[in-house]
């Protein structure tokens, strides 16, 4: 049985004209990219699909310029995160409802009724964090992501990532506590 090709080999093959190589890359990373994008975009799956489709478009257009300074996986995540940031900024400029940092004003009746629901509580608390902290938490707890990989994607040292993660978790804890005291 032939050994599985590396991401870099697949990218090279795609640039060389084998379209199926892109399909193989997508099989490896599309779902995880979609999951992260959906979390960053406040659970909006439609926007997450837009972001990931734009990510593949950039891979198709600029795959030939990949220089191999980082892994393909890191490169894909960086593109995906940048697409999410662009979408968030575009929507903020267009004056649409903020996708992140939602809590503004008091909780509605249904929100209050669900206050004891832990899943909702954690989701709301994460969405209430600022963009950087949210990104750090989501990336660090993203399936299969090590601190080293997360730091590489964010282009920061591992120590900085850990201190940011610590601050983000403190903020998360405070948000959960504040919600119940309100």
């Amino acid at each position, binding site marked *: 049985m032939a050994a599985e090709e590396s991401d870099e080999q697949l990218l090279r093959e795609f640039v060389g004209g084998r379209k199926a190589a892109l399909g193989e890359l997508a099989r490896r990373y599309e779902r995880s990219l979609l999951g992260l994008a959906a*979390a960053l975009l406040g659970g909006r799956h439609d926007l997450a699909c837009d972001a990931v489709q734009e990510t593949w478009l950039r*891979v198709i257009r600029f795959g030939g310029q990949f220089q191999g300074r980082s892994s393909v996986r890191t490169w894909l995540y960086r593109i995906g995160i940048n697409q999410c940031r662009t979408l968030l900024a575009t929507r903020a400029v267009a004056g649409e409802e903020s996708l992140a940092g939602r809590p503004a004003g*008091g909780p509605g009746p249904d929100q209050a009724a669900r206050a004891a629901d832990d899943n909702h*509580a954690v989701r709301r608390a994460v969405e209430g964090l600022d963009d950087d902290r949210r990104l750090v938490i989501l990336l660090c*707890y993203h399936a299969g992501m090590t601190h080293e990989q997360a730091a590489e994607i964010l282009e920061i040292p591992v120590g900085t990532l850990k201190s940011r993660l610590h601050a983000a*978790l403190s903020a998360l*804890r405070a948000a*959960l506590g504040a919600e119940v005291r309100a």
Partner: protein
Amino acid sequence: MSEQLAPEIEKQLRELTAWTGPAPGLWRTALRQAGAAGRRRRRRLPRVPGWAWTGLAAAGVLIAVGLSLDTWPRGRSAAKSADGDSWFRGPATTAVPEARREQARAVGPYAAAARGMMPASERYAGGYAANTGEVAGRPMFGQYAGGTPTAGDPVAGSEITTGPAGERYVVRKATVELGVADVRAVFAKIVHLVSEARGEYVQESSLTGSAEHLEGQLTLRIAVDRLADVLNELRQLGKVRAETAGGEDVTTQVVDIEARLRNERRVEVELLELLEKRQDAPLKEILELRRAIGQVRETIEQLTAQRERLSRLVALATVLVILRPADAPLPAAPGLLGHFAHALREAWLSGARYLADSIALLLSVLVGGLAWWVLLVVAVVVIRAARRRSRRAAARLPAS
């Protein structure tokens, strides 16, 4: 150094970034998009002639009409058979009350306080002692203790137990049947006995019968401390034919609710203090505290609602007043002539009913089968025209 999270929080965070559905294959869309952009920036839709659009629209309308004709009666009958007697009463109507109940639970004093609708001091009203004031013009618990029922009042003489602070909580009811000369006038007077300023009101009222046999009924909700006065005033309005009074002692229920409420509030305060002290506690503990506080608050809201319902029942007595004419003559027994007239009237009415039913049946056949009538007329006209043509043709044929 990052801290260790509880496994369940880690799981929830991982679930936030997990894509549960299948991969939608966006890379293919991106490939197509990139290919199309490479070949041509924009591709125009092929020009479709106007008649084709018109034809498509007409076909669409026909299909829609056909589908609606096909599905409408079945949908209606399905809805009807599922419900029994009315349409559109399905899961939606059962889901809405549940949603409303949930909303009502949520909009309790805590939610109201959080939105600035209610001051915090009211939210944590100190239990028993704080409940002696009036809410929305109605006295709350403890108000009855200040009332002065008269000794002669049969209601006041009933046996009641006492609460821990000496208050008695009784849900009071009374019925008075009066014979009066002018039912309508007394009816109006009784309505004026109700003091809306004190939260009293007429719960139900009715006037039935013709002029000489007019009867009235009123259900009044009267403040308990005025019950004796109101009953005295009612007695003066006519001749008392019957009078009953009673009371249901709910002191035990009230005491029980108050005790549970005090206890739950104490627990809530303790949990909040604990949460305040343990700000650096692991997330798992904070979530457990949140869960516990949520449960306590739910119990508090349920108890508060029970207490308010009881307080309304205790604060306002229910008085049923029945008014009948004082000297209404008994209806005379019908004689032979009267019996004959009655039988004749019944027979006439019965015949008229049969006639009306027959006309209704005829009309329903005429209107309901309109389409068939039209088809029949058209068929008759066509057949007659065909026969006429054949006769003329036969007349023109040369003799063989």
